């Protein structure tokens, strides 16, 4: 994270600019965003074709971990029922039953606004998913390759020696918005490093590997895949959880950007440079 040569003064305060993101990081970041949105939407479209999750190799209906279903209420209206680990929730409008393209309630796992395409269209959802999965993998390979070759991983992402020690007790202080803002001028803080590392080297590979495990052809070629994830249906479940993990990461990521300065940090992801008030 080299300190840039630029410094200027505006509105009385003195500012300097820090060179924060290399072009490859910026480009792969902005490719990743729509690609992940599309993978999520098309993934939910595929999920909707059989909106239940299981463990093992079989999908026995009575042993579902999660099932989005529907029921007729006594008044004749459709009720969305979500069953999760044996418990039942009424999720009408969100899961199980939601408004379809014509505005009438229809039986579907996730609602139209969350799926690509919106209406039920498994074949097209698969086309989107299996195409953009390639973009996700290639983009990820470029990013990881660059990070390894250019030292981005070593310098900016791996925790420095001693950084892990003594971090626990001061965690609350580190999470204070002012502290976060001040720290963001210096580089990624430890929590940030750990969450980026787990997304890059845990969640993303997990999503890719469990996705591949759902391919019967690759199961025949690499039987170890099925063993590793304890069955095709467990692979499907883990794939769903990995996607959920990525969504959670995205929400925290956006929250953090808003906390530390949305304009400055979003701009930095375009220009590469972060504006820092002198003295911070």
């Amino acid at each position, binding site marked *: 994270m080299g300190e840039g040569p630029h410094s200027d003064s505006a509105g009385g305060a003195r500012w300097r600019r820090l060179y924060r993101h290399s072009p490859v990081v910026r480009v792969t970041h902005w490719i990743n965003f729509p690609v992940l949105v599309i993978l999520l939407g098309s993934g939910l479209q595929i999920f909707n074709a059989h909106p239940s999750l299981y463990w093992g190799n079989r999908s026995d209906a009575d042993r579902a971990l999660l099932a989005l279903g529907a029921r007729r209420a006594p008044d004749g209206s459709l009720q969305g029922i979500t069953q999760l680990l044996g418990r039942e929730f009424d999720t009408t409008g969100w899961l199980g039953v939601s408004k379809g393209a014509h505005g009438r309630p229809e039986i579907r796992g996730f609602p139209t606004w969350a799926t690509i395409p919106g209406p039920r269209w498994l074949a097209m959802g698969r086309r989107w998913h299996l195409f953009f999965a390639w973009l996700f993998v290639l983009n990820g390979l470029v990013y990881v390759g660059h990070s390894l070759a250019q030292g981005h991983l070593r310098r900016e992402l791996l925790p420095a020696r001693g950084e892990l020690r003594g971090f626990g007790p001061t965690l609350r202080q580190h999470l204070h918005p002012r502290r976060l803002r001040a720290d963001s001028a210096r580089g990624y803080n430890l929590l940030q490093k750990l969450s980026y590392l787990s997304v890059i080297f845990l969640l993303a590979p997990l999503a890719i590997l469990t996705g591949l495990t759902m391919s019967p052809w*690759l*199961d025949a070629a690499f039987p170890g895949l099925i063993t590793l994830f304890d069955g095709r249906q467990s692979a499907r479940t883990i794939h769903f959880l990995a996607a959920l993990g990525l969504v959670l990461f995205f929400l925290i990521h956006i929250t953090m950007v808003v906390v530390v300065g949305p304009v400055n940090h979003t701009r930095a992801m375009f220009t590469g440079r972060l504006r820092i008030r002198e003295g911070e």
Partner: protein
Amino acid sequence: MKTLSRRGLLKRLLGSAGLLVLSGCDRLSQTRWFPPLLETAEPVNRTLHHLLAHRDAVAREFTEADLSPRFPSNGTYDPDTPAYNLLRASGFRDWQLEVGGAVERPVRLSLAALRALPARTQITRHDCVEGWSAIAKWRGVRLGALLEQVGPLPQARYVMFFCFDRDGNGAHYYESIDFEDAYHPQTILAYEWNDEPLPVPYGAPLRLRVERQLGYKMAKYIDRIEVVESLKPFMGGKGGYWEDRGYEWYAGI
């Protein structure tokens, strides 16, 4: 105050961007040019999968203890046509499988004749394109053995299966596979399911098992087999009922 409005703006921006993406995706799906772009992933996957897997890499086989307590029936569960019902009434004794097309010795084989050919029994996992999996035991004639008997001509490239069942619009079901899959040791024409004659919901009298692909490739209610040079002249030209409706011809994924 300033942060609040900024936050509000960001939220609105993200919300409308999200809507734009999703409705944009719907519109793109309807264009003439975009779906073919998405479809370019299929030959990439197919080529790569064939490079990665040995020709005869076998799908995992299970034990009796792994059998699904209930095996779903998807798509057609009963063809219910006059011709089919007539054959069904006599236990398919009067039915004969016709194997023809680009072959040296076309044949017609009764169920008894099929049962006399080299058979294979396998307990495998059936993966539906919808996402579910179920395990069952199948017994049937090895398609490779049947092909050796009829002798495909040198220019032949695919094996096509024509089925008894039709959809609500009268369109016939059909499917096709290439020779690599056709000669695969686990590729069979099953006439037994879990040690009983193939039940109607699972495709009586005969259904295809292609264990390294998704369920929709495994044609049920087979009436006739044709060895062909090209998929184009048949029905929608994509090599199968589901393929004509947008699904991948290569369903190993």
